[in-house]
């Protein structure tokens, strides 16, 4: 009830020349770190933190969060243009964004991505505005079993609806799970699968693997196809951008569903990356042209982008209201809050309304600024694809290696990029799906931790996953997503066979 007044007050705080300037600066810097793979939002934001000590907390959080939005926007750019995800959460965007760009429609792909991103972010903010109090109480109901159920749901949504051969999916999935167990385990404190290499102690970075699998792997395939990185000669002008915006309303159902998935994953701290995968999986099975996914369907771009951004903005809520960061960037910003002398927690809304509502209001404004700025860059980025392969190819290699190195400043990671580049090439030649591997790497470790914690709590009884209505409901939906499509397929094959016999 009072939320609306508070929001208006927040706009009063957020819309000052100084703050608008900070938003533009933040979004632009975010775009730069987002576009460069490996640098990413968490690194960018932590580089800025010391600079914010001389700002007041509201200005500081506006700067940092604007940078976050900018990075989220920027992350999709390289996914679409070069098949190299700039951010973990934009991996799913490559599946259809890259094929669309390769077929000469890079302007359309980028515009679709940025517009859906903006729509997702705004939906997320509206939800925060309306449900701030309720949503944070809801998040308190999530213990270890509920967390596991959420991860299980994300797995089920993506895998259950996959179209690749089940055995190949299993191989990719288990490889991903295996990779995610490398390093020191949180629950037991023991070191696993490092084979004595101390570089592996901290695990294999998901981003390094993704840069190898997608960036280098794709490059190798291109080289084999005969060095044609088709310098796409499509006309590039702003009218294409407007035309694409015009086709968006047609996909309202996909947008809406994806935004809801994003909100759900943002509030239950599943995170943006899981949200984008889940949303892509569900969009693929919901679409009647399901088989054509992966060849440049617009829905395949809209779904992950919308979910990614609505989850990204909703993830601010658990951070402010509970002090749980649901993404790496949120963790860095929370550190900032503490240094500025603010305590994230339920009382923040009561004790610092100017700060909280100033931030929420700034999320509306800076996301709008972000959409306008990135749309303006579309022709420029789209033009990159006109550059002949002989020039852009080596540049991509350089970007991949620099990006992988920035993840944790380790030269060992460069070897991993090469290795996973080979793996990515083999996967695509042999028709193994890469997505399940990536998903397993993102969620595998978290799911394993949550499962292990649940087992400690319940003394080893699986009944804990059906111990209350919340967790049982999520588990049942997950199992249904896994089983029902298979049953349907089986059923229809059965029915088709009857007339033949």
């Amino acid at each position, binding site marked *: 009830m009072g939320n609306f007044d508070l929001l208006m007050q927040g706009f009063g705080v957020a819309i000052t020349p100084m703050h608008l300037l900070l938003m533009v600066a933040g979004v632009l810097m975010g775009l730069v770190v987002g576009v460069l793979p490996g640098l990413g939002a968490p690194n960018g934001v932590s580089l800025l933190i010391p600079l914010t000590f001389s700002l007041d907390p509201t200005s500081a959080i506006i700067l940092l969060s604007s940078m976050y939005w900018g990075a989220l926007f920027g992350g999709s750019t390289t996914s679409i243009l070069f098949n190299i995800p700039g951010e973990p959460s934009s991996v799913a965007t490559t599946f259809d964004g890259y094929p669309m760009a390769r077929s000469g429609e890079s302007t359309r792909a980028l515009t679709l991505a940025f517009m859906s991103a903006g729509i997702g972010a705004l939906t997320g903010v509206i939800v925060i505005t309306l449900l701030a109090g309720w949503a944070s109480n809801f998040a308190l109901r999530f213990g270890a079993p509920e967390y596991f159920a959420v991860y299980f749901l994300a797995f089920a949504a993506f895998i259950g609806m996959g179209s690749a051969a089940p055995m190949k999916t299993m191989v990719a999935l288990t490889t991903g799970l295996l990779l995610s167990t490398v390093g020191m385990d949180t629950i037991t404190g023991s070191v696993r699968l490092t084979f004595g290499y101390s570089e592996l102690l901290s695990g294999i970075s998901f981003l390094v693997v993704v840069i190898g699998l997608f960036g280098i792997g794709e490059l190798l395939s291109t080289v084999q196809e005969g060095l044609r990185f088709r310098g796409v000669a499509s006309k590039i002008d702003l009218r294409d951008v407007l035309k694409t915006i015009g086709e968006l309303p047609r996909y309202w159902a996909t947008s809406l569903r994806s935004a809801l998935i994003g909100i759900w994953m943002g509030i239950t701290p599943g995170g943006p990356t899981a949200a984008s995968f889940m949303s892509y999986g569900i969009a693929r099975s919901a679409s009647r042209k399901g088989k054509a996914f992966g060849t440049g369907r617009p829905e395949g771009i809209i779904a992950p982008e919308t979910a990614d951004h609505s989850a990204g903005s909703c993830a601010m809520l658990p951070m402010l209201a509970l002090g749980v960061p649901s993404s790496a960037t949120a963790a860095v910003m929370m550190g900032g809050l*503490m240094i500025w002398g603010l305590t994230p927690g339920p009382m923040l809304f009561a004790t610092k309304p100017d700060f909280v509502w100033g931030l929420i209001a700034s999320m509306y404004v800076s996301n709008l600024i972000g959409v306008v700025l990135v749309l303006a860059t579309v022709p420029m980025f789209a033009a990159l694809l006109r550059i002949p392969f002989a020039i852009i190819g080596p540049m991509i290699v350089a970007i991949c290696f620099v990006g992988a190195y920035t993840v944790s400043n380790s030269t060992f990671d460069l070897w991993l990029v090469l290795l996973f580049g080979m793996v990515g090439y083999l996967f695509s030649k042999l028709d193994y799906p890469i997505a399940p591997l990536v998903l397993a790497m993102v969620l595998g470790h978290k799911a394993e931790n949550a499962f292990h914690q649940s087992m400690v709590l319940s003394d080893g009884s699986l009944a804990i996953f059906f111990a209350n209505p919340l967790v049982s409901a999520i588990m049942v939906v997950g199992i249904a997503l896994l089983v029902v499509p298979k049953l349907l397929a089986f059923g229809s094959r059965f029915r088709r066979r009857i007339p033949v016999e």
Partner: protein
Amino acid sequence: MTYLKTALLAATAIAAAAPAMAEWAPSRPIEFVVASGAGGGTDNFARTIQATLNREGIIDNSVVVLNKGGGSGAEAFLYAMQNEGDAHKLIFGTNNAYLLPHVAQMAYSMENLDPVAALALDEFLIWVKADAPYETAADFIEAAKAEPGSVTFGGSQSKDTDETLVSLIEQTTGAEFKYVPFNGGGEVGVQLAGGHVDAHVNNPNEALGQWQSGAIRPLCVFSPERMAESDPIHDGKGWHDIPTCQESGVDIASYRMPRTVWMPAGADAEAKAFYTKALRNVAESDAWQEYLNKTSQTGVFLSGEELSQFITENETSAVEVFAAEGWTSQ
């Protein structure tokens, strides 16, 4: 008189150090290697020092912060080992630097690290849900004794400071708890507020928000005397109103986590003197005092012999706990 004494001391210190100091100063950007991910307590510690150094003009060189939090922080200490003798790297950690090699096979040992200073002590408290049936720490322990394994402790990581403390409580009181490790203090805090665990031993800073809102309350603090006076936080109670654990019948006089700064072994002794002096200046600044107040930590400045002694004591008592729990790896 105190001023005079300090001035005299400082003067002699400078006189003694002057010829040496003149010879060493950083010649390129300094790397701050943080043994935790971005956003954690150790990260804030390093970044506050970074900001203070530059703002107060203590060091003019630029400072780059690198997060190497993998393997509970082992990544940062391994990095120190690989950069032996590099005087442009400082490593920021807690007691994990010297405790990790005891519980897991590590490629580095204390031979590879040279302690520079400890600048703060973080306190540990027992927190329970606001509506929990226990009024005092003694009640809580009794409840755990009455039904062994029924009381759940959440904590950050495994075989790390939190689990060590919980084991220490078990060994001291004879109670038996169930310990569930989570990924960090913030996550544990929410698990308690949501009622998924019964207690945790978070630092003041990690628990402040939930206490303010009245979701959780402290039972006792593991420090030799009560914490500093503060404004009331919830229900008219502030940090100073929390009894020490010893007062409330849990016989652990002190359990605190030092915030420490290290250098790779084999670096120039003069460089170490340079950083010790710079860090001492930080510890005496107003900005540092403000950071300590905001995060409810206790300020100290330990270096040289004092620091080695502190480390030895802290290590010995922790290793006793490890041995009793059967965690020691060597």
